[in-house]
């Protein structure tokens, strides 16, 4: 037994305006949704250097920044549950990072380099497990004064570094 339905013979060619209007409305709706949400959520992705060059520009809108976490600076405030720490500038360019010896080395060098530009971070929320020395912090938030950044979101990456025992 087959449950296939016989298809009616093709109708004569006739412009189906209802279909065209329907499709236009749908495509228009999709484009509207795409463009409006993209505009709402698009953020600059900056290095600490770029941010500190014009800190005033970023007090009213969210930006995303990336930097190396300095382990000694991590403070947990037991009373209000905020986490404070400092990040150091790392380059934003993938190729440059490769030339400088890879992400792990760049993070370690930046965190240890007192000359590198630094930025204080305040984060309201639980201290993430990956927040530790020389991890890469990617933060979303605003500048609250010329040297402090208030983060709403935090994303951490720890490049694997197994060079300790096995030097190639």
């Amino acid at each position: 037994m087959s449950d296939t339905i016989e298809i009616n013979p093709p109708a004569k060619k006739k412009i189906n305006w209802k279909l065209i209007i329907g499709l236009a409305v749908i495509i228009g709706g999709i484009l509207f949704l795409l463009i409006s949400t993209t505009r709402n959520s698009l953020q600059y992705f900056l290095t600490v250097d770029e941010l500190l060059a014009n800190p005033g520009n970023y007090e009213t809108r969210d930006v995303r920044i990336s930097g190396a976490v300095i382990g000694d600076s991590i403070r947990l405030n037991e009373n209000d549950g905020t986490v404070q720490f400092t990040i150091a500038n790392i380059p934003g360019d993938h190729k440059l990072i490769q030339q400088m010896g890879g992400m792990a080395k760049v993070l370690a060098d930046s965190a240890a380099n007192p000359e590198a530009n630094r930025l204080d971070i305040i984060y309201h929320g639980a201290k993430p497990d990956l927040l530790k020395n020389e991890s890469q912090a990617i933060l979303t938030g605003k500048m609250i004064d010329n040297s402090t950044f208030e983060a709403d979101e935090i994303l951490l990456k720890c490049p694997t570094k197994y060079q300790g025992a096995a030097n190639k």
Partner: protein
Amino acid sequence: MTIQFANASLLFSLFTAIFGAAAALISVLRNSTLWSCSSRRAILLTFLYQSAAAGILLSYLISRDYHIDYVYQTVDNSMSLWMRIAALWGKQSGSLLFWSWLLSLFIFILSGMVRDRRELGIATVFLMSNLTFFIYINFSAENPFPRLWTDINTGNVYKSIAPLMGMMAYTPENGLGMNPLLRHFGMVLHPPALYLGYIGIFIPASLQIAAAFQKNSGNQWLKNTRGWYLFSWIFLAIGLLLGSRWAYDVLGWGGYWGWDPVEVSALIPFLLLTAYVHAVIGNRITGKFRSLVAILGLAAAFSVIFSTFVTRSGLIQSIHAFSVSPMSASLTGYTICFLIFIIFVIIRSISANVESKTFENIPFGAFLQTRTFIFYGLITLFAVISFFCLWGILLPTVMNLISGTSMVVDESFYTQSTGPLFLLLIIALGIYPLTSWKHGFSKRRLLAIILTAIMSIVPVLLMGKTQPFTIWRSLAVWSIGFSLILFVIDKITHAFEDQEGERKFRPARLFTQYFHPRSRLSEALLHLGVLLIALGIIGIEFFQQEGQLSLAVGETKTYQGYQITLAQYDVQNTSDGMLTESILNVIDPKGKSFSVHPYRKYYGIYDQETTIPGIRATLQNDFYAILMSSSVAGSNDAHLFTFFLNPLINFLWIGGWVLCLGGFLALIMPSLIRKRANG
């Protein structure tokens, strides 16, 4: 010696894979049985060589031979047998070996199943070429077999597969082991489940490609590939589910999904395959949807390659910490070649499959009420959601190429753009059982839909008693209420039977309705699973509550009606790190008491803190407690805790397993029924 044998096996599998592809190509071009046999043997040999290489690496992992660099980097003395097995996919080179071994296994199985020489030949050319690429990368740039050697004079350690002149074998006493955050059943099984899903998709794609290059291939490929695509779909679902559960249990932020590019790229094949499955069903019943079936299957296969590209190339920013790897350039080239080839095949298969594109001769208004229209609608929705996901992943890269500025979209892009579309899908799922393929709604059904739409306002009003109304929250509650009610109504109406002109309720039919048609049970489970998942997601996304309390030992405080007492707080040194434990005794608003046990553990050798939440799960909500402060303060001071109330979250996990069960039934039912019919 053995390790060199393993490495040689890897190299030989590269040769046999190249030979297998070449022999298959010759067998197709010359229509030669001899070359076809050769190609089949090459497939078997490739699988055997791959098994030897993977098996040897696995045995070293199990026996903790730290002389092998890969073992040293992924295993340590404290890891259990299961964790040591899981270390096989713990790092790039090992997981690539596991990946190509699985692919070689699937090709071997396929070669036993396909009778048609030409079809197998074309499929083999495609599959073995892909396998060749993966083995080549695995042998050259990402080799898992180097060993550690030390120079006695300088003490420097070097990596090499072959022994180095004048150097001693170096075997560390302990390995570096797996990051403690990854030691969870979800994270152990999440990669192999996703891999099964990813690699499973190559097989039907290859058969579809074979059909596109054959004359008069007819519809047979549709039947041959369905099961394989479904297989992939199930394992992708399991993989995604395990990953979410891991994040929920381990990461300690009360969440389960972060819209990270890697997560999103694993979601895309799943969405496309879901669309594909619906297109196949639509095709079986109406004869339409053929082009869509062809496009969606291959698009899903390409999205797997794209997903691998996102995860491994390092070009896209993600929390999944793979750095730019040596395979980046070749992977980019491979992805582009694959895309061009797939587009070529899609054009070929569409032009070969001429289908009647005219709609049935029913009024346009009535057509909008048919199941055919719902299917077109939901396939469009799945495709658009996938496109939005792709847009979110690629936008930063594209912006950078065009304008040189670094711009990104945050999580809100995904939730705001796909959220409304997911709600439409839920509503479509609710209406679907009342539709028919041929005609519009009957008056009775239309009335049922309108009444349900009105009835679904009740949960929204109930919600308004405790929570403020917002547009999206109200719409979300309304849609899930609407679809759940219609789902139940559909099951109840099927328990009515026409008898002597009267409609009678037959309680037994509440269960027997699933016997026929055969797909009714799996369909009901799949859709119930989706509705439950949606319920759980709406619960946690719109109604999650979060708060903090600081508690001293013995102190009691109240949070959202929960009386919480810190009963115990302990800091102790264990063999692998500093453990900070706490026990909270809680009395919930209904007067029931329970304890949760949130703890933190600091693993010294990895410099890694882990925060494990204490969770009390009920259907109503999860009480999710996190110990915030580490072992700094003495045990008499106050300790900070974060609490989450995650309403309905457990429906997400239950729904997930119901979904997988439904998928599994859909996979095995046809063959079970065939067996019964034959026997």
